[in-house]
C-alpha cells in the first residue's frame, strides 16, 4: 500500500511540471508583452520595468528562475496590481473559493447520494422517476443558465435572497446550489446505478437472511460498495467545481479566486494568470491523487492491478 501511495505521489511531479511548462511558455510567447498595452509608459520605462521583473533575460533563464522561486513557494509579482504579490492575492481570495467549493461539494454529495439511494430502492416507480428526472434537468442546466435563472426568480422576483454578494450567510444559498446542482445530479445517477448493481448480490441476500434491519442492509452493506464509483468521480468533480467557480463567482460577484482568474485573463495580467494556474493545477492534481489513494484503500483489487 505504501508503495502504491508513493508511486501515485511521484507521478504528481511530471504532471505538474508539464502543466507549468506549457502555461509558462504559452504566456511568455504570447504576442505583446505585459506592458505594451500601457500607452502612457515611455520606451525607457518599459525597459526599466522589464529589467525589474527580469523579462530582459533569455526565456530559458526566466523559466529556470520561475521554477526556483516556485520551489520556495513564491509565485512572483502581479503586473496589474504592482503592490501585491500573487501569493497575497491567493491568500486573500482562496478562503472564499474554498468555502464556496466545499459547500457546493457537500451539497452535491448530500443531495446526490440521498436521491440516488431513494431512486434505487424502487426502480421504475415514481420514487425513481422524479429524482432521476430532476437529475437530468440538473445535468442539462449548466451553471451559467441556472445561476441567472435562480437570481431572476428568487433574488429579483421573490426577493428571498440578495442577487449578488458574499456577506450574509444567506448569500451562500444560491451560489452553492448553482455550483453544486450538476454534480448532485451526476452523483445521484452514479449512486443509483451502482446501488442497483450491488443490491442483487449474494452477500446482500445473506445480510437480509441474517435478519438485519433494512436500514442496516442498505447503509452498512450496500452503500459501502456502491460508493466506489462516486468516490472515483470526486476527482473530476473537484476539477469541475473549481472551473465552475469561474462562472459562479462572476455571476454572483463573489470575491474569490475564480473571479480573480477571469479578471486576470481579461487584463492579460500574465504573472497573475500563471500563478493562479499553477495553484489550480496543484489543487486538481493533488486532489486527484488523494482520490486515487482513497480508492486504493477502499478497493484492494485496484491496488493489486496497478
Amino acid at each position, binding site marked *: 500500500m505504501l508503495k502504491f501511495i508513493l508511486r501515485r505521489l511521484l507521478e504528481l511531479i511530471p504532471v505538474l511540471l508539464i502543466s507549468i511548462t506549457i502555461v509558462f511558455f504559452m504566456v511568455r510567447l504570447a504576442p505583446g508583452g505585459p506592458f505594451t498595452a500601457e500607452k502612457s509608459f515611455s520606451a525607457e520605462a518599459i525597459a526599466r520595468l522589464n529589467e525589474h521583473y527580469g523579462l530582459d533575460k533569455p526565456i530559458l533563464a526566466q523559466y529556470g528562475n520561475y521554477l526556483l522561486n516556485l520551489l520556495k513557494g513564491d509565485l512572483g509579482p502581479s503586473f496589474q496590481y504592482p503592490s501585491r504579490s500573487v501569493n497575497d492575492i491567493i491568500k486573500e481570495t482562496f478562503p472564499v473559493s474554498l468555502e464556496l467549493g466545499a459547500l457546493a461539494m457537500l451539497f452535491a454529495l448530500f443531495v446526490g447520494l440521498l436521491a440516488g439511494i431513494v431512486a434505487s430502492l424502487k426502480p421504475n416507480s415514481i420514487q425513481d422517476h422524479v429524482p432521476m428526472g430532476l437529475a437530468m434537468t440538473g445535468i442539462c442546466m449548466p451553471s451559467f443558465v441556472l445561476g*441567472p435563472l435562480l437570481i431572476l426568480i428568487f433574488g429579483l422576483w421573490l426577493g428571498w435572497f440578495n442577487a449578488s454578494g458574499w456577506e450574509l450567510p444567506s448569500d451562500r444559498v444560491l451560489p452553492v446550489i448553482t455550483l453544486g446542482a450538476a454534480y448532485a445530479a451526476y452523483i445521484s445517477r452514479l449512486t443509483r446505478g451502482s446501488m442497483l448493481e450491488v443490491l442483487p448480490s449474494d452477500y446482500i441476500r445473506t445480510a437480509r437472511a441474517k435478519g438485519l434491519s433494512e436500514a442496516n442492509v442498505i447503509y452498512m452493506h450496500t452503500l459501502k460498495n456502491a460508493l466506489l464509483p462516486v468516490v472515483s468521480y470526486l476527482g473530476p468533480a473537484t476539477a469541475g467545481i473549481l472551473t465552475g467557480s469561474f462562472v459562479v463567482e462572476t455571476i454572483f460577484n463573489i470575491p474569490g479566486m475564480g473571479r480573480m482568474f477571469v479578471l486576470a485573463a481579461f487584463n492579460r495580467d500574465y504573472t497573475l494568470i500563471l500563478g493562479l494556474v499553477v495553484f489550480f493545477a496543484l489543487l486538481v492534481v493533488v486532489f486527484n491523487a488523494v482520490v486515487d489513494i482513497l480508492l486504493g484503500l477502499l478497493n484492494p483489487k485496484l491496488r493489486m492491478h496497478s
Partner: protein
Amino acid sequence: MSDSKPQKSSLWADSWKQLRKNHAAIAGLVILIALITASAIAPWLTPYSYEEQNLALGASKPSIEHWLGTDTLGRDLFTRLLYGGRTSFMVGICATVVSLLIGVPYGAISGYTGGRVDSVMMRIVDILYTMPFTILVIILMVVFGRNILLMFGAIGAIQWLVMARIIRGQVLALRKQAFIESAIAIGASRRRIIFKHIIPNVLGIIIVYTTLTIPHVMLMETFLSFLGLGIQPPMSSWGLLIKDGAAVMETYPWLLISPAIVFSVTLFSMNFLGDGLRDALDPRFSKERS
C-alpha cells in the same frame, strides 16, 4: 415453399428497432434535427441580419415583427438565436471530429498492439487526463486571441482522451475473440483485420460516444463565450446570448429566458438521444446502469 423471406436482422436494424421504442430518444432526435436544420437555413428563415443594429428600437418585447423581441442594441433575438445555433453546433461537431480523429486511431493502435506499447500509451493518457485542461483552454484563448478554429482544436484535443480509453477497451476485448483469431490464422493482413473486422465492430461505440461528446463540447463553448473568452460579438453564440441576457435580466427578462430554454432543450435532447443510443448499440450498458 412459403414466401416468407428470411428476416434480415443486422445489428443496425436491431438497434434502430430498439431506439424507436425509446420515446425520449426519438423526441430528442426530432428536436435536434429541427434545431440543426433551422440553424443551417437561418438566412432564409429570418429577414433580419444577426449583426445589424437598430438602436432606435432598443430592447423591445416579443412582437409580431420580432418573435422573441430584440436585444439592447435592437438586434432581432430570434435571428441571433438561430445564428448562435450555427456557432454552437459547428463548434460541437468540429471539435468532436477532432477528438475522433485523434482518439480512435490512438485507442485502436494501443488496444490492438497490446503489451508494452499499450501500457505506455495508456499511461500517457492517464497522465494527460489529470491535467487541468479547461484552464489551459482558457489561457490558450486569452493568449492567442479568441480564434474559433483554435477553439475547435483545443476542445477536441481534450476530448480525445476519453474516446481513446473507450476504443482501446473495446478493441482489447475484440482482439481475443474467435473471429479475429481465425482471421489471423487464415493470414489476413493487419490492415484488413483492423479495417474489415475491428472498426466495423467498434462503430456502434464510436457513434454512442460521439453523441455524448457533442454536448460536452457545446457546453464548453458556451462556458467560454459566457465568460467572454470564446466567441466574440457581433458573432452570435448561445453562451454569448445568455451572458448578455443575464446582464439585463432585471429589466428585460425575455432576453435571458429564451436563450436559456433553447440551450437547455438542446442539451436535454442530446443527452436523451445519447442515452438511448447507448442502450440500443452498447449491450454492456443497460438502462439500469446509466
